[in-house]
């Protein structure tokens, strides 16, 4: 099968610091890929570049029939790319002036031009899927961390994105809320949503991922099925990282 998501030669520098040093990555439709690696290695930057929250310096990102070339990406292409990629932030980043339901509707009404009624129906479906059917009218400040992150995931789900990006979706959560958020992501993964997830939850990665990618120093060091990476890693750096995180 060919790549649904095809990233090639992605380079990102912050000043003299090369944070992504030529990333190539191919995701087949429905493939769920977990990215692991030490902190400061460029995992977040990779996800942010795929959403153009950080602008890559070189390389290409292809999603379906849309190809965005870093050298000549225009506004319209960047917006199109963002509409095809849902981003879930570590710190939720909910719109504080909007209710849970409005957070989910916003991309549908303002961005995709749906009518309010249609968007509301869709948002209510999503609220039920994320287990917050009765909290649609709550503002973020009235929700627990776990509930806020589920709304953050719901907002990304509403885009019906070709690719969902999760950047350490449970790292900012109190331990008591981690389970419910992982359960929701597991449910989305079970629906064969193409996704890239950066996580420190190794057990979770092993469980949901079709493939695990180990990154270090802005490069992909090693990748393979979870059984191989966690059980029989070939590269010393992978093995030493996995020993450290236990």
């Amino acid at each position, binding site marked *: 099968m060919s790549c649904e998501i095809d990233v090639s030669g992605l380079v990102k520098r912050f000043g003299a610091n090369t944070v992504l040093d030529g990333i190539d990555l191919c995701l087949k439709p429905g493939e769920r890929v977990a990215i692991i690696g030490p902190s400061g290695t460029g995992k977040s930057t990779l996800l942010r570049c795929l959403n153009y929250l950080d602008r890559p310096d070189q390389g290409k990102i292809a999603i379906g029939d849309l190809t965005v070339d870093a050298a000549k990406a225009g506004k319209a292409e960047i917006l199109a790319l*963002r509409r095809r990629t849902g981003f879930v*932030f570590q710190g939720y980043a909910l719109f504080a002036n909007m209710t849970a339901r409005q957070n989910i509707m*916003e991309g549908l009404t303002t961005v995709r031009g749906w009518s309010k009624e249609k968007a509301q129906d869709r948002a209510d479906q999503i609220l039920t899927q994320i287990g917050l059917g009765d909290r649609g009218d709550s503002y973020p400040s009235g929700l627990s961390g776990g509930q806020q992150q589920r709304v*953050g995931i719901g907002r990304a789900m509403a885009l019906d994105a070709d690719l969902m990006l999760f950047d350490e979706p449970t790292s900012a959560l109190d331990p008591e809320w981690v389970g419910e958020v992982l359960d929701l992501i597991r449910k989305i993964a079970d629906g064969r949503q193409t996704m890239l997830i950066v996580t420190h939850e190794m057990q979770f990665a092993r469980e949901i991922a079709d493939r695990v990618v180990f990154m270090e120093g802005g490069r992909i060091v090693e990748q393979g099925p979870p059984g191989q990476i966690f059980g029989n890693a070939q590269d010393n750096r992978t093995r030493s990282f996995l020993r450290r995180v236990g």
Partner: protein
Amino acid sequence: MRSLDIAYMWDLVPVIAGYVPLTLFMAVISMIAALVLAAVLAIVRVLRVPILDRVVAVFISFFRGTPLLVQLFLFYYGLPQMLSFLTSINGVTAAIFGLTMHFSAYMAESIRGAILGVDRSQWEAAQSIGMTQGQLLRRIILPQAARVAAPTLMNYFIDMIKGTSLAFTLGVTEMMGAAQKEAAGSFLYLEAFLVVALFYWAIVEVLSVGQRRMEAHLGKAVAR
């Protein structure tokens, strides 16, 4: 020492009251224009629009760095000497123009601060779902910034009402100008200026009550 001529003051009340609408008119029009201008100036600064950003920085610096009275004189007596189409500008227009420029400079700074106070992650979240710069400002950032800036902007509105009294120096007969004229005829300066002072005080007090109500309301909405 003489005693206050209360009867004279009482007679002045309806006279001064007749000029309240003009004072409020100048203040309200200037406030609306200044709010729009200030929002634009603040956005130019926040987005660091090339070149314009520098121009706006100088504009703000100038209008904050010089007295309102000097600015009014510049607009009314000074500029028409160079720009002949301004010779027919009347005092009310010049005052509205000056108040707008002056207060927009201050208000732009508080709006800018309020915009920057909105958590950066919300900008990114809005971008990530594909919103344009204009959409995310209008839908996410400005509504939150407005809440934060509202009490300060209300204070500027109060300053602006008091600032309209300077229009009298441009030959406009508003509340202050009317009091001055009355006093010049009766020589009862103390009474005339006391009445006009009480008028300003009363207007500002009414607004302060409104301001406190608004703050309580906003506080509730945010704490929800």
